[in-house]
């Protein structure tokens, strides 16, 4: 009896720390404030989306769903929404601010984050968010238009910075997600 018990414990004993985003990512929000993700938001539940402002379809639907979720949670709920750009090359803080204005995002408890490519790439890697350039078009005047294929994920993090659930962004059911947010701490 003891051999098996010890064997199992020894094998699993090393994995003693809970899942967490170990690394810290220095990013910038749409107001131009420097933030640490996820530390700057520790103590608040987070709803994360991954978007880019030139996205003609998916990101707009996901953002619309998050707006519905925001309304469903109500003003009392202090969950913080974060939309992180997949395209830091074009999506500066200014651009994100304009995007928020046009899409009707209330930035009091919903921030849009950008940063340098390397930092964001390692964050996406950590969170298993995938993107790639889908096609690029060069205009006559030398302007370049490109679009990204990307994962359609909305992640819910608890107040400790641990990812607790993920959803398909474009098919988000606000009631279902609100329930998860209520259950976690």
């Amino acid at each position, binding site marked *: *009896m003891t051999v*098996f018990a010890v064997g199992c*414990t020894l094998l699993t004993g090393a994995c003693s720390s809970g899942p967490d985003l170990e690394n810290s990512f220095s990013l910038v929000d749409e107001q131009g404030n420097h933030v640490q993700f996820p530390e700057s938001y520790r103590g608040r539940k987070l709803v994360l989306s991954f978007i880019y402002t030139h996205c003609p379809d998916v990101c707009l639907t996901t953002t619309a769903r998050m*707006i519905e979720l925001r309304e469903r949670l109500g003003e009392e709920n202090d969950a913080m929404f974060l939309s992180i750009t997949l395209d830091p090359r074009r999506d500066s803080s200014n651009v994100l601010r304009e995007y928020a204005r046009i899409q009707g995002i209330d930035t009091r408890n919903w921030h849009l984050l950008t940063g340098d490519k390397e930092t964001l790439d390692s964050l996406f890697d950590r969170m298993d968010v*995938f993107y790639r350039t889908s*096609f690029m078009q060069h205009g006559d005047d030398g302007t370049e238009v490109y679009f990204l294929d990307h994962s359609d994920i909305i992640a819910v993090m608890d107040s400790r910075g641990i990812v607790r659930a993920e959803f398909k962004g474009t098919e988000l059911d606000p009631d*279902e997600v609100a329930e998860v947010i209520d259950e976690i701490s």
Partner: protein
Amino acid sequence: MRFHREFGSGAGLSSLILLLLLTGCSSEKKRNHGEDKQAGKSAATARTEKKTCIAGNIEIIDMWLSPAVKGGTSGGYCTIRNVGDQPDTLLGVSSAECSSVQIHEMVDVKGVMTMRELKNPVVIAPGETFTLKPGGHHLMFMGLNRELGAGRQARVQMRFANAGDAECSAPVQRPGSVKQTADASSGEKKEATNTMGMEVYARYCRTCHREDGSGVGEIFPPLAGSDFLKDKDRTIDVIVNGLSGPVTVNGKEYNGVMSSLPSIYDNEQAAAVINYVVEKFGDGSWDATASDVEAIRKK
């Protein structure tokens, strides 16, 4: 895992009949009707259908564009209905608002939303419709000349082989205000991934019970299809309090020791891994809450 590909705007794009009309042209056939009509299509959602514009036997219904900044890209949607008795072909779309318009399709390839340009002209059979909606097909208005803010009207021209040009004036709207849902994968149940449960299982349970829940020979019982999992209280008890002594699973006897879930995992995390196991390996007929775990945990 990640790679970048760049496709130049080469022959592949420019050879398309359907696309890339670069300037908004005015046409002699300017018919732009807006007519409210009760849609009898769906009993569940009796929306008011609005004809944005018509040309010949082609009706363009409920066209709208998404808000976008000057220089950016807007997505456009509508339903195209052929009320004639001959097929017709959509040759192209243009707009005075922007430098070019293309038609793309979104395809979910293993969780990655992938955009594909339509290579072939859209042919609409008599009596049929072609619908562009979020998550499916969309018009891409690229290189906007001005900001398209919600509430504005955008000028769009659709050219058909038989019907000719339809001159349309479509509203710019935020997607949330349009009650359309992307049912590209209709019928699939939306499920949240129990990430916490999955991670705890991987860190603590998988070594003995295995990734596929098959267990190990005579030593560690299987979880997959296990009759043990049908008993909620007993399952919770084993995980938070451990188990030793003989136990029968699926008619087979095991006699080992299972350590309880370490105390670094709290009740919520215990419930998460329990629910992960029941969902993945059991019949998913019950789930546990942190309170259930608390109640069973031996002090």
